[in-house]
């Protein structure tokens, strides 16, 4: 289970509860140079980032087209803030998928790690340790995959007052492979 909360100041607290009983608390502090979502400064940086990134990641144009068909976003002062958030979300989902696939692809490495221990007792301990580690990593990715779209929807609702499901569904079809750069003020 993942309990995730974002404070007004942008601090994100993630509490992961694993079936083993293990509890991991993760506190993500925002970069102090990154303005808060919903500010004019954020919007300005988001627009600058869009102009720069759209040349490389052409699917950003698709994201913009979707936001332009969302009247509340278009009329607001925060069109590019929404585009930026969607860009970050889709890039995050792509990276999480890669992380999941990486765990799957590294099964031979996992086996080697276990069988590199010659002592049978130690090997059993090692296999248990590896099993728990792989299980936790997989679960953490899965939880984050579930949390990221919800966090995005919450931020969009905060920004525009509401966020229609059809707009969200359309955005979820856009593939973003580029890694967004951090929005940092001068």
């Amino acid at each position, binding site marked *: 289970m993942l309990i995730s909360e974002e404070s007004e100041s942008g601090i994100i607290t993630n509490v992961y509860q694993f079936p083993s009983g293990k509890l991991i608390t993760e506190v993500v502090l925002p970069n102090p140079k990154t303005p808060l979502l919903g500010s004019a400064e954020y919007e300005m940086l988001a627009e600058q980032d869009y102009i720069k990134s759209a040349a490389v990641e052409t699917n950003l144009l698709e994201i913009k087209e979707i936001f332009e068909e969302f009247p509340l976003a278009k009329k607001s002062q925060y069109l590019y803030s929404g585009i930026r958030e969607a860009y970050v979300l889709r890039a995050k989902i792509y990276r999480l*998928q890669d992380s999941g696939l*990486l765990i799957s692809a590294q099964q031979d490495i*996992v086996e080697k790690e276990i069988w590199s221990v010659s002592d049978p007792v130690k090997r059993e301990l090692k296999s248990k340790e590896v*099993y728990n580690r*792989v299980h936790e990593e997989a679960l953490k*990715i899965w939880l984050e*995959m579930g949390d990221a779209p919800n966090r995005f929807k919450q931020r969009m609702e905060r920004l525009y007052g509401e966020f229609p499901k*059809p707009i969200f569904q359309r955005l979820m079809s856009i593939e973003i492979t580029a890694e967004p750069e951090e929005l940092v003020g001068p």
Partner: protein
Amino acid sequence: MNKRILIRIGVCLLILSALRLVFFGPSSRLNVIESTIQSESQSNIAVGLSPIFNVNHDLVGSVAPMESEPPEVEGITNTYSFSSNHVVTRVVIPNPEFKIFGTPKFESLAKTQFESLTINSKYIVDTNLYELREVFRDFPAAMNSQFLYSGIYQTAITTCTLREVRQFIFNTRYQAMRDLEEANTITDAAERESKIERIKAMSSAQLELYESMRQETLEDGRQNLIKLYGELPKPIFQRLLGIELRLPMGRLSYP
């Protein structure tokens, strides 16, 4: 004790397989294609890639004889030419039920399949199947047609194929990364550089090929939905593609 370790490794592998399933579902038809590409391309330096021949993706497809299949097998052949003059031929054999795509019989089979995975299912239902149906409900041409479930089935095929292609893309990048690591251990500088160039060229060509497969999958899916409903607004298609099914819908029980 070793038995216990083996069991634990087994469980580990199960988790890994489940993870693969959760993120990308089971690979099926396209596996054949991928291995063909890899085996055909191994000994060549491939730098660029462009499709040179693309048989019309009609429902029945064009006849394409294959060495390993009887000559009467119908398939869709795409041939790609690399700038090294190396050629890759991809043959996709459509599922036989697609011969009746767009007919009431297909619709009935698709509806039965949908219900077997939802209201008649003994297992946990993938609620995203209902989401797909909800999107079609916002599309009058689909609702007024007699082919609602055919569209749902077609969409599921498109999204699941896209997921498989996505997995191929990851596999190619991962394999290239490992091959490059290995190549970097070669002591002879000339040999090392040559090997690195070959790996980079090969993976770049494969990625281009998968990107073209991705585009073809999207276009085929779009065209099939247009065949069913006469039109397909972009927002509806995007919404459909934005819904990820956890598993493919499975084959229709076509004799």
